[in-house]
């Protein structure tokens, strides 16, 4: 792997950049692999990378029906944070954030992790109480988090409207300073390049059409590019997890919904932090290019279409302008949707399936991007060792039968 650096950049500039090698190969799929990862998004590529790096395996393929990072990896609002309420989630997402913090160097690919701080706003007494609970739990889990009063919010986000006469005024916020954003495509590309360098075959335009199972054990996959035998198969297909699971005769507690996102035209920097509000439902940050990157609520019905309904955007624009009045005259440049796989408890499923050798990693819902390296790391461990790591053991499929869910829906509705 040619190392990327300012020196290699300068060297290549002499040759008009005509000798840069491919970032990853484009191999024909071989008829058989030890491990096949289905899904060439960030999670799948990270899984392959850590299988190779942490577990010394190399007979691995990642197969992707379209192009690398073309699903939710390339469609999200790039927010990274680990400020989760429950211990299980906090530890898993924190593992991921820690990996993120060293990822550019590890992969030798600048993923532009920008730890500019993530604010979660509180708009009523109930929100404030939830915030207090959350921040205290997070801190005791060893994760940075602090509480801001409205003036503190103003100091971090000068353009925020903290007037008490707002319909839902900003009464405070939690702030995770280590939270932030990263360049989503770069995460996929960086993992792809690093996995490729360790011998992983990355096969694009290869769609799975069937899963071969015999005697309760996975044998391989039928694909649009032929049959591929495999000793172990990991399914990491986000919104399409149910479709793949059905090929193995499995039902999942998953629904696929469209989650919309959008960007504004690029403007000079006005917003340094990531600002999220569950109550008025909007989240926003400003990219290094100057675009505001804005997240919307999930559409209410099952969908595989990457197309959402416009009223979701309308609702969230009102919220955005309430919080940031100077945004009213900016323009929406581009809007799109991703297909998110949602679990009843808003937590992922990472672990084994009833089929031997078949593993699944799904259900990240609206928050998968922040988990990318952590998810890959624990999933690689699970596949390599045939048992989950302590970090993902609570996220097994069996929890739906036992009832030990990890309910991350956030604040329940206030009800007095």
């Amino acid at each position, binding site marked *: 792997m040619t190392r990327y650096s300012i020196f290699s950049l300068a060297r290549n500039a002499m040759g008009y950049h005509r000798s840069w090698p491919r970032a990853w190969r484009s191999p024909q799929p071989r008829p058989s692999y030890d491990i096949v990862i289905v899904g060439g998004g960030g999670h799948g590529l990270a899984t392959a990378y850590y299988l190779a790096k942490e577990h010394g395996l190399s007979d691995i393929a990642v197969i992707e029906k379209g192009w690398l990072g073309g699903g939710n990896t*390339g469609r999200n609002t790039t927010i990274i944070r680990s400020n989760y309420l429950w211990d299980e989630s906090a530890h898993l997402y924190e593992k991921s954030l820690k990996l993120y913090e060293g990822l550019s160097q590890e992969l030798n690919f600048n993923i532009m992790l920008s730890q500019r701080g993530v604010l979660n706003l509180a708009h009523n007494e109930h929100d404030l109480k939830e915030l207090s609970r959350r921040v205290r739990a997070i801190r005791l889990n060893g994760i940075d988090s602090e509480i801001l009063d409205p003036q503190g919010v103003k100091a971090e986000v000068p353009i925020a409207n903290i007037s008490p006469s707002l319909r839902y005024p900003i009464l405070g916020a939690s702030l995770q300073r280590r939270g932030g954003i990263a360049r989503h495509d770069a995460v996929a590309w960086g993992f792809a390049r690093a996995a490729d360098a360790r011998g992983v075959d990355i096969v694009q335009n290869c769609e799975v059409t069937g899963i071969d199972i015999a005697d309760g054990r996975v044998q391989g996959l039928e694909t649009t590019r032929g049959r591929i035998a495999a000793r172990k198969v990991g399914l990491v297909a986000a919104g399409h997890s149910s479709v793949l699971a059905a090929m193995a005769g499995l039902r999942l507690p998953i629904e696929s919904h469209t989650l919309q996102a959008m960007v504004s035209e690029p403007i000079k920097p006005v917003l340094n932090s990531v600002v999220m509000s569950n109550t008025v439902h909007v989240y926003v940050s400003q990219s290094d290019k100057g675009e505001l990157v804005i997240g919307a609520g999930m559409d209410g019905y099952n969908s595989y279409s990457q197309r959402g309904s416009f009223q979701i955007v309308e609702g969230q624009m009102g919220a955005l302008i309430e919080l940031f009045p100077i945004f009213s005259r900016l*323009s929406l*440049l581009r809007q799109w949707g991703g297909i998110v796989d949602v679990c009843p408890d808003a937590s992922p499923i990472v672990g084994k399936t009833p089929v031997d050798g078949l593993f699944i990693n799904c259900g990240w819902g609206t928050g998968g991007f922040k988990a990318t390296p952590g998810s890959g790391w624990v999933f690689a461990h699970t596949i390599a060792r045939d048992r989950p790591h302590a970090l993902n053991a609570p996220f097994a499929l069996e929890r739906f039968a036992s009832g030990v869910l990890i309910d991350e829906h956030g604040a329940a509705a206030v009800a007095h």
Partner: protein
Amino acid sequence: MTGQPYRLAEGGAIDRSRPVGFSFDGRRYTGFAGDTLASALLANGVTLVGRSFKYHRPRGILSAGTEEPNALVQLGTGARGIANAKATRVELHEGLVASSVNCWPGPRCDLGALNDLAHRLIPAGFYYKTFMWPHRGWHFYERLIRRMAGLGRAPEGADPDRYERMNAHCDVLVVGAGPAGLAAARAAARGGSRVILADERGLPGGTLPDAADTGRLGETTAELEDLDNVRILVRTTVTGYFDHNFLIALERVTDHLGPHAPAHLPRQRLWRIRAGRVVLATGALERPLVFANNDRPGIMLASAARAYVNRFAVLPGRRAVVVTDNDSAYGAALDLHRNGVEIAAVVDLRRNGEGGKPAEARAAGLQILAGHAVVDSRGRRRVRTAHVARLDDDGSLTGPVRTLSCDLIAMSGGWNPAVHLFSQAGGRLRYDEALRAFLPEGAPQAVRCAGAINGAADTASCIAQGRAAGAGEPDDRAAGRVEAASRAPWAVPARNRAGEGRRFVDFQNDVTSADIALAAREGYQSVEHLKRYTTLGMGTDQGKTGNVAGLAILAQTLGLAIPEVGTTTFRPPYDPVTFGAIAGRDVGRLADPVRRTPIHRWHEEAGAVFEDVGQWKRPFYYPQDGETKHGAVARECLAVRNAAGVMDASTLGKILVCGPDARALLNRIYTNAWDRLEAGRCRYGLMLGEDGMVLDDGVTACLAGNRFLTTTTTGNASRVFAWLEEWLQTEWPDLDVYLTSLTEQLATVALAGPNAREILAALTDDIDLEPDAFPFMAWREGRVAGLPARVFRVSYTGELSYEIVVPAGDAMDLWTALTGPEHAVTPFGTEAMHVLRAEKGYLMIGQETDGTVTPLDLDMQWILSRKKDFIGRRSLARPAMRDPLRKRLVGLETGDPATVLPEGAQILAEPPSGVPEAMIGHVTSSYWSPTLGRSIALALVQGGRDREPPTVHVPLDDRTVRASIRDPRFYDPDGVRMNG
């Protein structure tokens, strides 16, 4: 100030009798009514308008329309500023103030242009390869990079303008009012359909250059304007095409009027249109040619040059080189020539300029260089020369390079049908090799395409297709297509191996053909990878001019056919939409409805501090004479405990449940049994989700045999109502039960405290209040303060308490009577209520519960019937629900009675020993209890009250507090007071 050296003396659709003054970059100029900012700048000889995003290259005006990538300007100032307006779209008005974006100090001399000198070091995606040293160094580099980011500036204050949304329905929506669109609208209207015709320009008629054609279209327009079933929307861009023929369009109502806009009009209006059928007559957009230094000011699209000279009577230059790979640019050359522009040459990339147009040009005396290409240009702030060389059959350059002096290069690289909306609708695009264009294929929804969007190149075909589409008749989609005869290269080759001279594909984002080749070389070979790696098509123009050439160059580099590389899906919006217009009126006071109880005015006048509970405003507490919150709440609590208080509980959800099977429904929904509840009696109930988690609680009264009034918590009122309806309709349609929400019809006032009976007695003479006659958990009907009322003897405070329910219209009278000076009753708010109920150890939904708490966790086994099934019961039987380590509700008492634990504080079994700590629970409610003179708290803790030892530790920011677990009933545990 007549100026305007490039303005023709006559012609054009401008009004020379109305000069319009404006300023650009601090200098004053004059244009005419009917100008765009771009045409007025060109008339004044201003060609350098701004700088590009990455290299800060000097840029001028490329187009005459919405596809403009270069000429972005900052409009207006202060709170009315607009960040990245396209000069080609801004209609000139008196006093307009515009300036260049993304340059400092100005477009003529811009420090950012240092980037251009360093361009060799910063090809596409360079940032992925560097800025990684030292560890976390990116945070430093990012700060520097961010300063360069963005184009225009955000406004400096809240938006003073108003926006609105408008819903519209029609049988046929026609998008685009050119020849095809007008024909479609007329055909549809004549057939009796309700038609909406929308066009982004200020007038219908499209962009035809020929005055005679335009005149004919004028007749059609006049006919349409007279029809009642046609609505014509001008300055209205249909910009989003969603499912089930729902489209959005942005109407710019007053932008073109500037400060003279009438105050009653909104600035912009977002149309939400549901159309039976849609006809897309969106035309086509011209492509630039890709050659070295094709981005200089003075290089523009041939169609734009033609539009400026014909429509605006502006010469975009005095000596032009026209370069083309198709016939359409010959019309531009002839029009420029006719209006006095010297044509240095028409450079045709094709070997043989065939057909009528080249012949016409030759006849007019124009020099045609067939089989040639413009290979480079010179000129810093305005193009000075075009460099022309012969193009071989294999697409390589041969022979000497000729230098032609010029101040305008008008170029045409063919046409892109404007298929954006069609693609948004879910339509597939097919690449047509003969036309070198993506064409709409099939129909994903009830949509037809007509005119240049289908590749039609002549007006007659456009009109024919439009007429057929409007009438819903079959047509010939392929009519009027002109094959691109040439195999001209998508990028003119570089003159030397070193690749001197960048060939720009995406002007705004400075993506060059070399960037595309680099992406391909490195493996970013899907068109989506290409876009993301190079930022091709990611600018404010969304690649309207550059994307197809970019795709073609990628295909060429990879040796693939264009369809094998694919096309990207077009996303909404077609043209940027103002945030404010999307939000419409749903901002400020109208952001979300405010729900107020019928007693709200009284609370306001009493100086209550309000709390938002869902959409409701509830009195939080009533401070008197400078009281703090703490002081007010303590006073209110003590008043209830020692005398009497009243609380407005009107926000509680109220559902009338009646019908023969009403009891059966209650039995299935609530965990306890309802078979024996008699008329006149009430019962507390708990409902669970099917997952066994507590959903809501409340008191239900039996009004008569099969009539019940159920109350819910404030926040869950609509949720519970919907929950019951859902079960009734979808699972138990056999149950004969009717539900009616009475939340808004009835008001509830809670009168609580040891004096409550006495006070109520003074206000009623037909209800026997004696404890034996009217016991706890009973209700009576009668008159209170002369008003018809139902009185429920229930208590959430632990005191003797009556909830008096009256029609909402009577609530203020009731409240006024209760708070009369003779009763010495203290109004109390929600916070005092919270304290009082916590003293009693009563749970509050949403505080002690969070969707993960079962009745077992709350030690409420007593309310779980064993004799029947109910929603959620089976889930409680799962072994994990009885795990002794589950968190259960307890009371918590701090060692120091003065310490009030913060709500949300986490609980440890041992003193803190370093993170991560093992948390065994958290404080759910915590207050200073004025009654007990000490702090109290409720908590969910592993093991609950069985926990040994019962001492726990609560770490705070600066210390750790010891607390002991106890019975959550801090006050009157046996309920003597409320039963009394």
